[in-house]
C-alpha cells in the first residue's frame, strides 16, 4: 500500500497528491510516469510524474478528475493509502544540446510542463513558459511556472486572465519575433499538442510532445499504448512517453483514446454506487 502524505486541490477538478513511494522516488526523472491503482477492483491508470523528493521518498502527481479512477483517487485523503503505485516508467526527457526552450502547457498538462521547465531551468537552459487555460478559475501553478522561466506567458481562451487567445498564437508570435527557440516542449490535450507541432513545423524547430495513451502494464507487454510515429508502431510506455511531435499521428491517437468513452459513462453510474457503498461502510 502507498500512503498519501499531502493533498492540495489546485482547482475544482485538478488535485495534487504526494505519495510515499521510496523506490520510485529514488529513480524518478522528469518526463517519466507512474501507474496507479486505487483498490482491488480498479483500473491501472498512467500519470506523468509531476515532482519527486528523493530524501522524503515521495512522488507527486497532479491529475484531473475526469474518469472513474481519477475520481476515486481524488476522493482519497491525507493518511489514506492506495493499492498500487508502480514506476518510474518510460524514458526520461533528453535535454542534451538545448539552449533556449519554449515549454508550452495546456490545462492540466501544465502539471507536467512545469517539472520540465524546472528541470531545464536547473540545468541553466533559458526557458520561456507559455501556459494556456480555458478560463481564469482553472489556472494552476502560475507562481511555480513564473519562478522557473525567463518569460512567462499566461493565455486564457476567454481572456479572463493573462492574454486572450491560444498558446499556439503566442508561440507563433514569439517565434516570428525572433525568440530563437531550438526546442519546443508541448504538453497538454492531444489537439493542443497537434497544433503546436503544426505551428513549429514550418520553422523546423524540434518539438517534443508527451503522450498519455491508454495502457495496462506500462512495460511493453500489452501493446495497448501503441502510437504511430514516423509511420512506425511505437509503444508509448517503453519508447516514450516523449516523441517527436512532427512525426506523431495525433488523429489516430485521439481515436484510440476514445475507445472506452461509452464504458466511462456507464461506470460513472457504478461509481456512484461504489462511493455510496464505501460511505455506508464508513458509517
Amino acid at each position, binding site marked *: 500500500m502507498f500512503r498519501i502524505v499531502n493533498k492540495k486541490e489546485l482547482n475544482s477538478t485538478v488535485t495534487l497528491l504526494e505519495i510515499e513511494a521510496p523506490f520510485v522516488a529514488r529513480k524518478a526523472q522528469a518526463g517519466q510516469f507512474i501507474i496507479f491503482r486505487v483498490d482491488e477492483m480498479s483500473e491501472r491508470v498512467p500519470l506523468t510524474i509531476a515532482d519527486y523528493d528523493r530524501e522524503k521518498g515521495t512522488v507527486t502527481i497532479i491529475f484531473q478528475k475526469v474518469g472513474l479512477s481519477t475520481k476515486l483517487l481524488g476522493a482519497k485523503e491525507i493518511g489514506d493509502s492506495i493499492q498500487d*503505485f508502480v514506476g518510474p516508467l518510460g524514458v526520461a526527457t533528453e535535454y542534451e544540446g538545448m539552449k533556449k526552450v519554449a515549454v508550452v502547457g495546456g490545462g492540466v498538462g501544465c502539471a507536467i510542463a512545469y517539472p520540465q521547465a524546472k528541470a531545464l531551468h536547473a540545468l541553466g537552459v533559458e526557458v520561456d513558459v507559455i501556459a494556456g487555460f480555458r478560463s481564469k478559475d482553472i489556472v494552476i501553478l502560475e507562481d511555480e511556472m513564473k519562478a522557473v522561466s525567463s518569460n512567462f506567458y499566461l493565455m486564457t481562451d476567454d481572456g479572463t486572465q493573462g492574454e486572450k487567445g491560444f498558446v499556439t498564437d503566442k508561440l507563433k508570435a514569439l517565434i516570428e519575433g525572433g525568440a530563437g527557440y531550438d526546442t519546443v516542449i508541448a504538453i497538454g490535450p492531444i489537439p493542443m499538442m497537434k497544433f503546436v507541432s503544426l505551428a513549429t513545423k514550418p520553422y523546423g524547430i524540434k518539438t517534443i510532445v508527451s503522450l498519455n495513451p491508454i495502457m495496462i502494464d506500462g512495460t511493453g507487454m500489452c501493446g495497448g499504448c501503441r502510437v504511430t510515429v514516423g509511420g512506425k508502431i511505437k509503444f508509448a510506455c517503453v519508447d516514450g512517453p516523449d516523441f517527436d511531435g512532427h512525426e506523431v499521428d495525433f488523429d489516430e491517437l485521439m481515436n484510440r483514446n476514445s475507445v*472506452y468513452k461509452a464504458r466511462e459513462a456507464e461506470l460513472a453510474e457504478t461509481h456512484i454506487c461504489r462511493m455510496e457503498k464505501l460511505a455506508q461502510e464508513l458509517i
Partner: protein
Amino acid sequence: MANMSLEKIKMPEQKPDVRNKNFEEVALGYTAEMAVEEAQRCLNCKHKPCVSGCPVNVRIPEFIAEVAKSDFMAAYRVITSTNALPAVCGRVCPQESQCESKCVRGMKGEAVAIGRLERFVADWYMANCDEMPEKPESNGKKVAVVGSGPSSLACAGDLAKAGYEVTIFEAFHKAGGVLVYGIPEFRLPKAIVQKEIDKLSALGVNIMTNMVIGKVLSVDEIIEDMGFDAVFIGTGAGLPSFMNIPGEALVGVYSANEYLTRINLMKAYLSEYDTPIRKSKAVAVVGGGNVAMDAARCAKRLGAEKVYIVYRRSEKEMPARLEEIHHAKEEGIEFHLLRNPVRILDDGNGQACGIECLKMELGEPDASGRRSPVPVEGSNYVIDVDTVVMSIGTSPNPLIRSTTKGLETNRKGCLVVNEETNQTTREGVYAGGDAVTGAATVILAMGAGKKAAEAIDKYLKK
C-alpha cells in the same frame, strides 16, 4: 492385470453450450474411482518411455502405480519430488506431444491419461491434506528472482527449500506471471495459482509486486546496493507482435496480451471490477496457438455471437494443445484455416468493422519443418467483425537486457545462457523460461527454473 481398454477414461466436463457462457473451469477432473481405473491402464513399462517425454522427468509409472493402489498421498510425493506445480501442469501441459506421445498404449488406442492423473493427484492433495510448508533455516544468502511466472516460481521454491532468502520482484500488482494474466480462469483457476504462491510465502519467499526491474532497480543495483548474492531472470516473452498490416491501430484491435490481461488479471468479465473491454458481436482471433484459443474462448464467454480463428496454415500445423482446439470447436468457435489477414477495415469512424483475408495453400516445409503457406492470388474476402485480436506471438521484453551491462542476447532478443547451468553471460546472473527460449510452455519454463536453482545453489556454495 492391466485395464486393457483402448480409450482413456473420459474426464467429466461442463457442457459446451453451458460453459461457453461462464468462466468456470471447463474440465471437472477425475473422481477417485475414475483415477484408479485409468491408472490400471498403465503397463508400468521397464524402460519408462513416458519419463523421457517429460521436461522435468516426473517418475510417471511410479506415481501411476500408487494411484492404482489408491495411495494418492504416495503418488503426490512421487510427483512433487521433481515437479513443484502438478495442479498447474496437469492442466496446461501439452501432454500429447510430451509424456503421452511416448506411451506404449498409444500405439494401439489412446495413451494413458497421464495429465489427467497428475491433475487428479494434485487436486486430491489440495482438497484433503493441504498443509503449508515451513520456512527452513536460513543459510544467510540472498537470491533475487525477477518475474513471477512458472520459471521464477519453480526457481524460488527450490532455492527457498534449500535455505536461501529469496525475494521475487514482480512488475504487475499480482504474482503469477502468465499463469494469472494469460491463461484464463476456465482453463486454470486462479485459486490454484494463488495456493502455489501462498506456499512460497510460507517457505519465506518475499514477494514484492509493482517492481519493474530495469526501471526502479537495475540488476547491478540488486547485486551491489541491495546485497543479493545471485539473480535469476524469468521475465518471460511479454512483447506482443503485430502483423504490420493496415488498420491495426483501429479501435477494436487488441494484442492477445492486452485482451487476455484485461480479462484474466483485471477481471473485465466480473461486473464489480472497473476494467473496460469492448462489447463485441463478432471477433476474429489471428493465430493458432494456445493463446489464440484462449482469446477466442474468452470472447465467446463475453457474449460475442460469432468468434473466428484465422490461421495461415492448416489445423495439423496449429501449435495449440489438441484439447484446446477440440474445446474451442465444441464451444462454437469457427475456424478459418489457411487464411492470412491482409488488412483490417475501418467503419469510417476509426472502428474495426471487418478483416480482409487471403486464402493460402501449403507449400514446401520451412525452417520449422512445417509446410509454409503460400498466398492464392485474388482470393481475398472479408469477414465482418468488430474486434480483432492479434495472437501471432511474443518476444522477450528488452527492459532488462537494455539496462544491464554484459548480458548477451541472440538475434531474437533472447538471453544467452550456458545450457548446463542456465547462467547468463554474467557471473551470478541466471535466466530461464521464455526470456531465454522465446515463447514456449509452462513446463519447459519450470524445468529451466529448477535447473537454474540447482546451479545457483552450487555457485553460492563454492
